[in-house]
């Protein structure tokens, strides 16, 4: 495909608010995970919680969108000049030419969960939560379209953990076909009971901070994040070279045993970018620290990439931010391209025997010209993004 420019990007998560804090935490090996203190009956686990969301209400004019997810989206827009970059694109092209594709898994379901804990005597939602805007998956997409004043495509992608990686692919098609001149892509997912107790019910939640690719890993740590990028056909910045999408066609909550879908998506991304696996300097792996994902992903990486490719999961810093993970980890991949920092697997001590030489415990530094980001979702939805540094061939 014709490479696209990433002219602005930002991320807000437990490991940092904005790019500088996030890069600092990655470099220093400083995890954002903490013992679970979310909700009324916190499970014994660790979470990647963004502090201060509770103290950051939306501007009054947007109060009908009030909920944790939309607050996190609003916080995320304020960093790294992202809001200004979108406004400048809107001025440059017109609101009709700037699209929005947002990935999320649970969107503002936290508001619906809260309503059920405060039902009236008649079994109705409480007065302050009796509005449709937050009780639907497109809540955050509609909120962002409204606050950004955009009039092109505005849509929510909800394919679980691949959601916001797929937002990049869908956005790229809008640019390719000339429907839009700029696309805001991103992911926003916030902590809620559904995912904490839901993943717990599947016995996938770890009692300790997650340890991706560790031989003794014991499950995931759930996190929350808002991450955004602005894609344009031309402009300064790193480039989106390709994407690959596939389905496992195997099981709703466990990956295909040979990593069939993951390999298909990685190969398609390489083909679309017209580069070889040997050109990839860094891969931000999906690496949830669940037993099966990490084993299968490590085997696929070992089979497909040379020993010179450095691979890691950054979920030890951020937790698994689910529908926001694709965009958050795309931002981390872009930071790697900019800084030369290749993160390791934080919290992990001894790598699983399935890992090849690509998967690294510690951080490294070096030239990063091409880098990939893997997102493999629940329901067997896979998406791989491939980026190049600004100025790289």
């Amino acid at each position, binding site marked *: 495909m014709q490479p696209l420019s990433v002219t602005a990007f930002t991320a807000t998560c437990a490991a940092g608010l904005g790019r500088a804090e996030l890069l600092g935490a990655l470099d220093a090996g400083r995890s954002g995970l903490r013992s679970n203190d979310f909700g009324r*009956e916190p499970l014994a686990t660790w979470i990647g919680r963004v502090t201060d969301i509770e103290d950051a209400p939306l501007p009054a004019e947007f109060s009908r969108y009030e909920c944790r997810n939309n607050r996190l989206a609003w916080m995320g827009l304020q960093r790294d000049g992202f809001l200004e970059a979108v406004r400048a694109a809107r001025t440059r092209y017109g609101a*009709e*030419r700037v699209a929005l594709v947002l990935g999320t898994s649970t969107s503002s*379901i936290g508001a*619906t*969960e809260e*309503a*059920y*804990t405060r*039902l009236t005597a008649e079994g*109705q*939602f409480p007065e302050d939560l*009796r509005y*449709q805007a937050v*009780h*639907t*998956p*497109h809540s955050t*997409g509609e909120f962002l*379209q409204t606050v950004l004043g955009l*009039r092109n*495509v*505005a*849509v*929510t*992608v*909800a*394919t*679980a953990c691949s959601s916001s990686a*797929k937002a990049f692919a*869908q956005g790229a*098609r809008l640019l390719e*076909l*000339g*429907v*839009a001149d700029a696309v805001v892509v991103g992911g926003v997912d916030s902590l809620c*009971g*559904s995912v904490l*107790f*839901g*993943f*717990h*019910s*599947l016995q996938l939640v770890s009692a300790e901070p997650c340890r991706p690719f560790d031989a003794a890993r014991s499950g995931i740590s759930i996190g929350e994040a808002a991450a955004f990028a602005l894609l344009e056909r031309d402009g300064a910045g790193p480039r989106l070279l390709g994407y690959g999408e*596939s*389905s*496992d*066609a195997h*099981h*709703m*909550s466990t990956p295909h045993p040979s990593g*069939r*879908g993951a390999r*298909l998506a990685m190969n398609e991304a390489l083909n679309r970018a017209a580069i070889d696996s040997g050109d990839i300097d860094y891969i931000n792996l999906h690496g949830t620290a669940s037993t099966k994902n990490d084993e299968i992903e490590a085997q696929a990486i070992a089979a497909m990439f040379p020993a010179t490719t450095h691979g890691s999961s950054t979920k030890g810093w951020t937790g698994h931010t689910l529908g926001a993970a694709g965009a958050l980890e795309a931002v981390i991949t872009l930071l790697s391209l900019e800084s030369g920092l290749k993160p390791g697997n934080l919290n992990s001590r001894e790598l699983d025997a399935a890992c090849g030489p690509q998967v690294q415990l510690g951080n490294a530094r070096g030239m990063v010209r091409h880098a990939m980001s893997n997102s493999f*979702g*629940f*329901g*067997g*939805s896979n*998406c791989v993004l491939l980026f190049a540094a600004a100025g790289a061939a």
Partner: protein
Amino acid sequence: MNLLANTPRLYVNGVALWSPRLPGWERARRILAGLEPAPAESAPRPAPELLPPTERRRAPDTVAVALEAALAACKSAGLPPHSLPCVFSSMHGDLAITDYMCATLASTPALVSPTKFHNSVHNAAAGYWTIAAECTRPYTSLSAGDHSFGAGLLETCMQALSAHENILLVAYDIDARGPLAAVALSKHLLSAALVVSPERGTNTLAAFELRLVTGEALTPSGARAENAALVAGNSTESCLPFMEAIARGGTHDVLTLATPTLGLDTRIEVF
């Protein structure tokens, strides 16, 4: 203003529709065209034949209606289900499971059912479809409020034009349950499916020219009142004008919204 530089022509190579009073395309086509009356009785929930027999009854409503239309559209197009990239769209996902999850979290959070949880994701229907169809092609699962059908149709057209191949669209919503029903307004079961491509297929039903228009005061096309009443209140009811045009035959201009200010302006020519 057309957001596209040209006016691409796309083909409807397969079609399907299911709702309790429009149970399957062949009857729906005759009912929507005014050739026969709608049944007075609602049809029972479909049992998608692609699912293993043990799962047909247990499947969530969203999965049942979505898979019914998905398979019927593939058959209509004469294409194997495993061969098609697919776009699923639904305003709400499975409202019955959302009600279950929220009620359980409010009372006994530690007792959330793992099966209900993995069926609660918005992409459950798409996930079950690709598993049942043994389809490793990509799927997506979209929501855009009341305009989810239009947003799904738009992405289907984008994928078809980008990849020059047949893409399966499956749009669906179900009825809301419990306290949620007061704020998530959706009734009945409804699914609509299309196979869309820039190339004619063997069983092509219609062609349409696509323009993407923007504006403050876009008025979507309406279906005939007696037809609209058959699916009224379902959050995917905005599919009906497009589906009705195919059912009636002839040439029709249909405007389908993908957002409040963006519409798919289609001139549909039925063969």
